[in-house]
């Protein structure tokens, strides 16, 4: 195993880390090296979606992504969503609809939805959004309030 340096654009800032093992996951780089613990550690096997971040704008499971794979690319996490227009409207929709309970799945849901809404062109249909969000698990809400939040966010994005 070789230890190498990675350079990432994280939330609009250049970040670098050295001594990153080949098998280090983006999830751990963000959380343990960079202190960005808003990205949540859930199953670490790609089943729950809690660790979702954006890589070059696309929603990505950071637990299944090797840090070296995303070298030199743009990573966005929940911590930057307050200054992202789509991120903000998604956060507002979740708050307004009571879609946050324990909050552990919340960052993953927000990032996944932002990834779906921030593409070019018109927003996907509600059915498409809900289909694509099935990889994010929530145990508190029964998804009822989350579905409402998704629809509200879609409406707000226009």
């Amino acid at each position, binding site marked *: 195993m070789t230890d190498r340096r990675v350079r990432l654009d994280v939330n609009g800032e250049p970040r670098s880390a050295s001594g990153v*093992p080949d*098998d280090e996951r983006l999830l*751990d780089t963000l*959380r*343990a090296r960079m*202190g*960005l*613990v*808003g*990205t*949540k*550690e*859930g*199953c*670490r*096997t790609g*089943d*729950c979606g*809690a660790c979702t971040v954006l890589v070059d704008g696309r929603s990505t499971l950071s637990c299944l992504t090797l840090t070296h794979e995303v070298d030199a690319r743009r990573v966005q*996490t*929940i*911590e930057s*969503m*307050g200054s992202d227009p789509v991120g903000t409207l998604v*956060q507002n929709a*979740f*708050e*307004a*609809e*009571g879609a*946050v*309970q*324990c*909050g*552990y*799945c*919340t*960052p993953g849901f*927000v990032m996944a939805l932002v990834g779906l809404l921030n593409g070019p062109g018109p927003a996907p249909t509600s059915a498409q959004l*809900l*289909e694509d*969000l*099935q990889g*994010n*698990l*929530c*145990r*508190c*809400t*029964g*998804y*009822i*309030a*989350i*579905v409402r939040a998704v629809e509200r966010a879609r409406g707000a994005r226009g």
Partner: protein
Amino acid sequence: MSRSDAPLKLRGGARYGTDLFEDGMLYAALVPAPAASGGVRRLDLRAARGMPGVRAVVGPEEVGQLLPKGGSSDRPVFPRGEIGYRGQPLAVVAADTLAQARAAAAAVVVEIEPKPAVHDVESVFPEWPGAEGPSSPHVVAHVRARRGDLEAAFSAADFVQSDLYRTSGVHQVAIEPHACLARSENGGYRVLTSTQTPFGTREDTAEVLGIPEDRLVVEGTWVGGGFGGKGSSFLEPYAIVLAAATGRPVRLTLTHREEFLLGRTTLPAVFRLESAVKDGEVTARRVRMLLDSGASLPGRDFATGYAIGFLLGPYRLSTFDLEGYAVRTHKPPFGPHRAPLAPQCVFAIDQHVEAIARRSGNDPIGFRRRSAWTEGDTTPMGQTVGPFGLGAALEAAHARAAEWRKGLADGHGIGVACGFWSTGTGAGGEAMLRLTATELVIVEGEREIGSGSIVAGLVALASETLGMAASAIRVEYRDTASAPYDTGVFGSRTLGALGQAVEKAAQALRSDLGSRLKVPPESIRIESTPQELVVGPPGSRTPIASLFTEAERAGGAIVASGRHYGRGGQLDDSLVLEGGFYPYTDFTGSVALAEVEVDRATGAVRPVRIASFLDVGVAIDRALVTAQVEGAVAMGLGTTLTEEMLWGPDGRLANPNLLDYRIPTLGEIPPIEVHLLEGFAGAGPRGAKGVGEPPIIPVPAAIANAVFDAVGARVYELPMTSERVARALKLLEGTGSA
């Protein structure tokens, strides 16, 4: 509808147990038992000690040296002698990185002298143990109660309805795995942990470690889902012994795989129900339960005796025989899971009652309605029933069912089921309020686990009592050394019991302010100005700070406290032959109505819509109560249709991951209607009843009854997978009695 923790959680700012990082922190990994049963022949830690980055490897011998008394002899940190279940931690490793800790854990040499594993309760008791009770070493609890002349009732019966039900092991599946961080401090230890019970964790962990409780401080973190799974002592002792061994902070986080392997979940149960029916009425009922306790059953009699009460149902009944055994197997320990065992018990009793109603030519809902408890009735165990909205809930469900019945599609069916629960107000708690110049602070050792009972519920009670805006009230989280005692966030008790302590503290504060201002306490309203809090009649408002005594000025606040230690009702103890039975603090009715579609070819059950009718006493925050109902119903759908921990005969769990253990996903939840029935006062503040658990209880039975309504097949086992439903349909074809 906003709650004060939402913005923090939406920004990624809430720190959970998994988010604990400290300078110099080490990572821990557990060494699992490689078999379910047998003695530890060899545990060789030497190779692991020599691995890169390893700072400590602790097994049973090291625990003996690290702890003042060598730990508890009754509940050792690591097993001495026989192991209890596959995956049981036998040793624990701390290293500089997680990868190093896991590599070293894998390098520990473990040899087990294997013994056959007891993998299910029916292999221990292929026949029912009988009235005398077995002297089997596998029995960890035995409860029995009886009343009336059963034999006479059964021999005079028009018919006897006799059914056998089996239910599965189900996991809480909080998305956040268990995690804690321990460090040595002031000659003792501090542990930061994601827990529903900071004080219970302190008590339990101190017992396991054999140290005085005041040598241990527990500090809660945000909790990423509990559902009963995050209480008492679990990972804390492992992290603490490593902190003791290394002098460094040590964090232990489970993988989701370990979450499943280490259990603390609902385990399988078998229920036998027999009812004697005469002239269309149940004249006697015999109920038997075999509960798999796994390696251990916390609160043995309580877990068994409380659960089995649900098997009689919320019905008037003069003659009964109730007997339950909890049986030790080589599965991981049993643990509480949202309304422990009640959904399983109701799956059995409610289907049984529905079958009796249909067989005796009665309308199933009307039949339940006629025999359901109402206020003033006596339960079979002799407790007087308090205000109980079950009848009203059944009536509302009946009306809604009639609407759904119109135009019901082919292959669809409708089912109703009723359950009940009790607000956990018996477990006590204390509260402290600090009124400063600018805000009211609720000082809490408990942490918010998601329901909103702390961040919104406690705040709402203080807000209303003191006539002040919720925005001027803040919850301040403290550790167990500086927060007032409370039993924990479980049992639908937080608002019910701790809420009353907060309400009493707020009333004490109101009285105090009233006497300082020489006005009636009821007239107290605390208002916020941009600069400060003021109190008093309009026109002569007094800044709070000006009411401070000299000592209060130094402390910066007026302090008030309140406590609530509740009690349940009284049972007729003369009915108890063996073990413990437990009274209810109040009576919460919960009815579910379900429409399903059943695919006759595959047996697949699709929930089409669910309605929940919940007897809430009074809804203190309707939005949050509704959210609890939605979440509980969704969780109940998992218990009903897909969730099942699958252990092999060797004690190996076949599905320790979220792909093979399936919880409901976003696309699988039907519309959920929530009907809140108010007016039947409970044991909580202002007559509120606990709502976190009751709505899950009738869901499996309602779906089962709907499946029967759709296709005429009864399913006797949870979860009702398509295989099981298909098998029931095949059986039906075979008998040709559809």
